[in-house]
């Protein structure tokens, strides 16, 4: 695994601050939503990304606006890192008509196709074939666009992963798979999900498909960023797909309400020592990129933004019930 110490010299200060801001935005958004969910203001299911912020942030920082991405059931971080607005995201989570999907998708299906965000997805590995198609389309249209698919370690056990990367390997597609190894597939640990031969390097599943394989510390935003830059450049140059395993940890349960019976004592506390929301600001301050005061300002500014986003969601209208019948097809409504 590459570590941040040897790599970060080349990253511009502005980009480092931007990455910090993105991580803070994801953490604060989700922490507030977590409370609103507990207060029963937010309906449905909630899968939090807390702990994995460095992954979405590092990856999306390396992308261009013209690139595509698909996400997962744990998708808020990917959306925010992609630049989606927290007010329309909050509105979607609240089921309001001002949400990204007009209240038809909710937490697991936020999408903004105009921003290249081809959707969070409630089915494990469900987005990988879609990203593969975006990569195919990019190639057939003779562009240098790249498609990135985020998925968890659990998705490596799904046929959709294997079919897609096999196809991407044969066709040399500009497809980048981000394996977010957060140590658990739902509520079952890695060792019950994969054979011992795969545990030390989950990118081994990409080996027969000829993908470029990288493995990075998923708590280190700069390591993620630099690995992604390299993979994206390769894909843009027509040199085919890549798979990056980002090794991290899910600080919250599989979903809210999960008792987390399966965590060994002390494991969470140990990973929290490496929380990127603690380590990265400290690093930027140590490197002289940021002052303590500036860090506090960022925190306060984003806190206010999230408060506004929640107010926007609360104050927005629920969709008119008749809207349930709209948007099934291009000609509008439901079928006769």
């Amino acid at each position: 695994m590459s570590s941040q110490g040897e790599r970060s010299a080349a990253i511009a200060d502005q980009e480092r601050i931007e990455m910090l801001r993105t991580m803070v935005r994801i953490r604060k958004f989700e922490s507030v939503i977590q409370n609103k969910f507990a207060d029963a203001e937010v309906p449905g299911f909630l899968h939090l990304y807390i702990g994995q912020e460095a992954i979405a942030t590092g990856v999306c920082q390396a992308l261009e606006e013209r690139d595509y991405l698909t996400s997962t059931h744990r998708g808020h971080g990917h959306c925010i890192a992609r630049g989606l607005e927290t007010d329309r995201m909050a509105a979607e989570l609240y089921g309001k008509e001002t949400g990204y999907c007009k209240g038809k998708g909710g937490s697991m299906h936020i999408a903004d196709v105009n921003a290249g965000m081809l959707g969070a997805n409630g089915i494990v590995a469900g987005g990988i074939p879609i990203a593969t198609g975006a990569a195919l389309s990019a190639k057939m249209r003779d562009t240098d666009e790249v498609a990135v698919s985020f998925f968890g370690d659990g998705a490596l056990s799904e046929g959709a992963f294997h079919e897609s990367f096999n196809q991407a390997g044969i066709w040399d597609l500009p497809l980048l798979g981000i394996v977010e190894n957060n140590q658990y597939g739902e509520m079952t640990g890695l060792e019950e999900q994969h054979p011992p031969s795969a545990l030390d390097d989950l990118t081994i599943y990409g080996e027969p498909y000829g993908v470029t394989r990288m493995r990075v510390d998923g708590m280190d935003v700069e390591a993620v960023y630099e690995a992604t830059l390299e993979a994206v450049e390769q894909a843009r140059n027509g040199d085919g797909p890549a798979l990056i395993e980002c090794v991290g940890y899910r600080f919250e349960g599989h979903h809210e309400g999960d008792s987390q019976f399966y965590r060994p004592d002390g494991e969470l506390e140990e990973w929290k020592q490496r929380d990127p929301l603690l380590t990265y600001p400290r690093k930027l301050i140590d490197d002289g990129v940021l002052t303590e005061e500036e860090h506090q300002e960022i925190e306060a500014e984003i806190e206010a933004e999230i408060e506004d986003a929640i107010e926007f969601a609360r104050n927005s209208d629920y969709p008119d019930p008749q809207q349930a019948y709209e948007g099934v097809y291009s000609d509008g409504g439901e079928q006769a």
Partner: protein
Amino acid sequence: MSTAAGDVEEMAVRDVINQTLGEEMERDDRVYIQGIDVSGRGGTSNILKGLDDRFGTDRVRNTPISEVSMVGSGLGAAATGMRPVVEVMYCGFLGVAGDQLLNQVAKMRYMFGGELDLPMVIRTKNVMGANAAAQHSQALHHWLAAIPGLKVVCTSTPADTKGLLKAAVRSDDPVIVFEHGGVYNRKAEVPTEDYVYEIGEAAIERPGDDVTVVATQNQLWNALEAADRLSAEGISVEVVNPRTISPLDTETIVESARKTGRCVVVDDTPLSYGTQSQLSATISEGAFWDLDLPVKRLGVDNVPIPFSPTLEDEVIPGTDDVVDAILDLA
């Protein structure tokens, strides 16, 4: 519906598919084909033969044997500027691509707020009477028609194959086109001009007064033959081709039922929960007070399709069965 009044050409269904896709690929660079053996062999029924020479293997693209990624990557391509036509060899293989069809293709537009165009066609075929055994012999349009978000058409004649396939390729929604192995070699006149049959419109294939038969695909040909036979006995049969299974043209079907007061519905899906049940319910709801007798359903008996010809013939309705059903009502 724009129908042609000009020149016609006698063609087999299989040649119509090749010609139509060729025309659509000429018309729009974004249209491309992907599936198993689509290049070289020309797809599993050799129907696409020669399109690879005309358009290249980039646009007539062989995939690995991977129904999930074949369908799913078609969806991703459709969402990002292409207009894929995916061939799934037999409808029984749609099950392999189950999640992509059920949860991705069908729901993407709606879940994302209703504005994302997904111009995607999935061509597959129902098969009956080919002694191909249960995994390769089935009709499954009722399965996909039960999923809101998919449009499902059944092609039956050379003329509707052209009109419906063109409509499907030009649609901004996912359209599942069910062909039928039993009609690929059927010939009839096809207008030579460019036309589409609107998705969601049924057709009266043969007007009549005494009994309505609503029939799809191979059963449509059986119904037309039955109508011919019975006209000699003085029974006037109206034959309705739904063309689209979802959305169903309720109005045309109900109107015919109200006129004749007697209906047979015949289709190759299993009788339990098959297309016949939807058609029958639609007719009963819309034409109840005009019906003289209950709607009669004909379909495949509730067994997997057996291999041996004597067994297979037993469970699939044929022309004689359609004749008997009409006589029961007439």
